[in-house]
């Protein structure tokens, strides 16, 4: 008896091994030990046939048994065919995205870039995500998974591997993974003999992923220099005076960000695409100002953050950048005031954080979804210029009418008066110089504050988005930074309390109650039959 039970257990194990082998072979062919599973299946089944021959012969000997056995064999065959079909269906699935914002697809620009990537490059992606993490980590993982699916729908040969750094610490250590949601993208060019190139993303969203793919397909990096030596925001400092967040994001988007000491003289490096002057506390000297002017007039781009002189600051703070006369030549002026914004006073209790209400229809601001918020800022003014060769100045962002540029800090009650700059006041101006002999037009973006670029404020509202779009536009790399995920629109559902209550009562009581009544009536009717 025990012998027969053991034989049947072996047979059952053999059948299970066949099922396991088929499943693993189809869906995880790289699993080690597949041959052993197949061997186990063969041994299990043959042992059962040999040791439990009376049952086997009865099964296949009688007409009913034969029918039963052939039915099960047929079912097994159909199961294998079904699994094969499912495997084929999973390989390159078609997708139809019917969501409101097409949220499961790449943006048009992103899709266009992915489709145009060179065919001779093979892209593989290692995504380090904690798998059994908290809700936020799981949400990050799912979002990125959806993004890779959308990418693979356009480029099926794109290889994706999700790795849990906690279960594979050796691999994570080898790849120097120090935080969750880090992605390494590698591009190799097959037979060309060139070593594979790779990029690392720590904020792996659509724009970063597509930009990385674009960079890997052409290795050029645009240089961005940050002027140092005048108490500006710095790449090397930490805390609220640091530019580390912006620099990190720009690096991910393919920019090489480094500091530039203009006090040493000479010229701006030839590879510079953008120079950032992030709020100097000491004005630049004439030589430095001349250096920046030559750079812009030669077709370069400059981002100037002009910090105001704040009430209570000592006489050593002048609120000057040293570029005032040059800015005036280019049609712009940073006024000597402090913007106070009633909108932010009501919302946050602090009027010294002006918020933009209007954006111009410009490449930089076109797809921005959140406003720009500055901290202790000064207002800007466009100066009238004459002549055909005048600089074109455009107001990129301005406040609502509830903000003004306050000049009188001695009064106890702040209110707009005749000497103030009345709202709406301008927060960001973009000047485009006339084309030079080489056909290049320099650009200058002036913002009346530097805090918005710092680590303390850059991640608030739309600041980071505005900053990277601005740098991308100034560097003439709109295609890289302009890859915004699709704009999200909020759904609209308006119901009064009574309407909501009625809807819920209908769902919970009325309809189930009606069915319950039907059930009772039928029961009574059948009982009386």
């Amino acid at each position, binding site marked *: 008896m025990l012998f027969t039970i053991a034989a049947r257990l072996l047979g059952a194990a053999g059948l299970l091994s066949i099922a396991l082998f088929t499943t693993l072979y189809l869906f995880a062919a790289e699993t080690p030990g597949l041959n052993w599973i197949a061997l186990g299946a063969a041994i299990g089944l043959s042992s059962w046939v040999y040791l439990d021959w009376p049952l086997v012969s009865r099964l296949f000997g009688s007409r009913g048994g034969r029918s039963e056995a052939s039915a099960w064999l047929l079912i097994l065959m*159909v199961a294998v065919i079904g699994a094969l079909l499912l495997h084929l269906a999973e390989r390159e699935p078609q997708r139809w995205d019917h969501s409101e914002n097409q949220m499961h697809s790449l943006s048009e620009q992103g899709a266009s870039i992915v489709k145009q990537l060179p065919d001779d490059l093979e892209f593989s992606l290692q995504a380090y995500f904690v798998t059994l993490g908290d809700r936020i980590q799981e949400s990050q993982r799912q979002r990125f998974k959806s993004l890779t699916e959308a990418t693979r729908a356009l480029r099926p040969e794109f290889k994706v591997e999700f790795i849990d750094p906690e279960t594979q610490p050796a691999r994570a250590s080898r790849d120097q993974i120090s935080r969750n949601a880090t992605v390494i993208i590698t591009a190799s060019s097959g037979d060309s003999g060139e070593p594979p190139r790779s990029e690392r993303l720590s904020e792996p969203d659509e724009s970063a992923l597509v930009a990385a793919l674009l960079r890997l397909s052409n290795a050029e990096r645009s240089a961005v220099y940050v002027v140092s030596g005048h108490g500006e925001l710095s790449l090397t400092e930490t805390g609220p005076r640091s530019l580390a967040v912006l620099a990190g994001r720009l690096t991910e988007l393919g920019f090489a960000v480094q500091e530039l000491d203009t006090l040493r003289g000479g010229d701006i490096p030839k590879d510079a695409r953008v120079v950032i002057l992030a709020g100097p506390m000491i004005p630049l000297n004439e030589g430095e100002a001349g250096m920046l002017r030559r750079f812009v007039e030669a077709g370069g781009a400059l981002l100037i953050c002009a910090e105001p002189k704040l009430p209570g600051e000592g006489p050593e703070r002048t609120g000057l950048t040293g570029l005032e006369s040059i800015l005036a030549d280019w049609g712009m002026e940073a006024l000597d005031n402090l913007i106070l914004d009633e909108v932010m006073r009501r919302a946050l209790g602090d009027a010294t954080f002006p918020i933009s209400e209007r954006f111009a229809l410009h490449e930089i601001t076109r797809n921005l979804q959140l406003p720009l918020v500055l901290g202790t800022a000064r207002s800007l003014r466009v100066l009238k210029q004459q002549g055909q060769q005048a600089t074109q100045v455009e107001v990129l962002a301005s406040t609502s009418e509830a903000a003004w540029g306050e000049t009188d800090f001695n009064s106890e009650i702040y209110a707009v008066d005749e000497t103030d700059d009345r709202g709406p006041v301008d927060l960001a101006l973009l000047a485009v110089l006339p084309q030079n002999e080489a056909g290049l037009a320099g650009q200058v973006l002036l913002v009346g504050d530097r805090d918005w670029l710092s680590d303390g404020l850059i991640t608030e509202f739309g600041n980071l988005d505005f900053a990277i779009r601005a740098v991308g536009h100034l560097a003439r790399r709109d295609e890289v930074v302009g890859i915004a995920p699709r704009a999200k629109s*909020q759904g609209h559902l308006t119901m009064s309390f009574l309407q909501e209550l009625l809807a819920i009562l209908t769902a919970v009581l009325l309809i189930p109650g009606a069915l319950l009544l039907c059930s009772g009536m039928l029961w009574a009717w059948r009982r009386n039959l």
Partner: protein
Amino acid sequence: MMTFHVARRELRHYLRSPFAYLVGAAFLFIAGVFFGLILDNYIQLSSSAPMYGEQGLTITQGIIEPLSSTLGLILILFLPTLTMRVLAEEQRSGSMALLLSAPISSTEIVLGKWLGLMTFLLLLLMVGLGYVPLLLFIYGDAPLAPQLSALLGLVLLAGAGSAVGVMTSSLSDQQIVAAVLSWMILLGAWILSFLDSLEGPMGAIGAHIGLMIHYESFGQALIRSNDIAYFVLATSFSLFVAVQRVESNRWS
């Protein structure tokens, strides 16, 4: 033609069964409670989001997706109670022998019973949940496509779930055994989806076989050919097994 005849007979049975209405009422009550919670949550969220400068949820994200996901789970919990009797009852009462002696093939019997069950389920869903799209149209700006996508997912899930129920009902003449088997298969396939988070072969199996993985994308308004293939194959295979079981009963 005989298929439709069997389907009509099966549908008539459900429409005259107090138990079917009772199950339907319980299903719609639980679905209604969840709908109420989801609706209230969405209305509160969408009214508070703009105050904090946040992007609110779309109706698909806030209502259709969570409702579709919840309905799927409730459906597979309730389905076995409706499907358990389909063939098991016929076998237990002996009416299966009568049916098999009639000039009707095993395929027609199984397909007919499945179609009858599916028609009842569709009627239940239409009558019981028809208020959802109506409310979203009257009081909101819900687009039609995501709702149709979620409905397609629910119909495919109902089709596969009821086919599994017909299959397990063909494997035993005990209704409770058929129901337990059906729950094991459906909930097992649902739970397999959680393996998707793991790495290696288990993760791959979860991603390919997990019921939730293939179902949830419909609620997100994303229709994928592999998800449709999964449900069509699961339905076809289950019905094929049921046909083979009925056929083998004919000869035993």
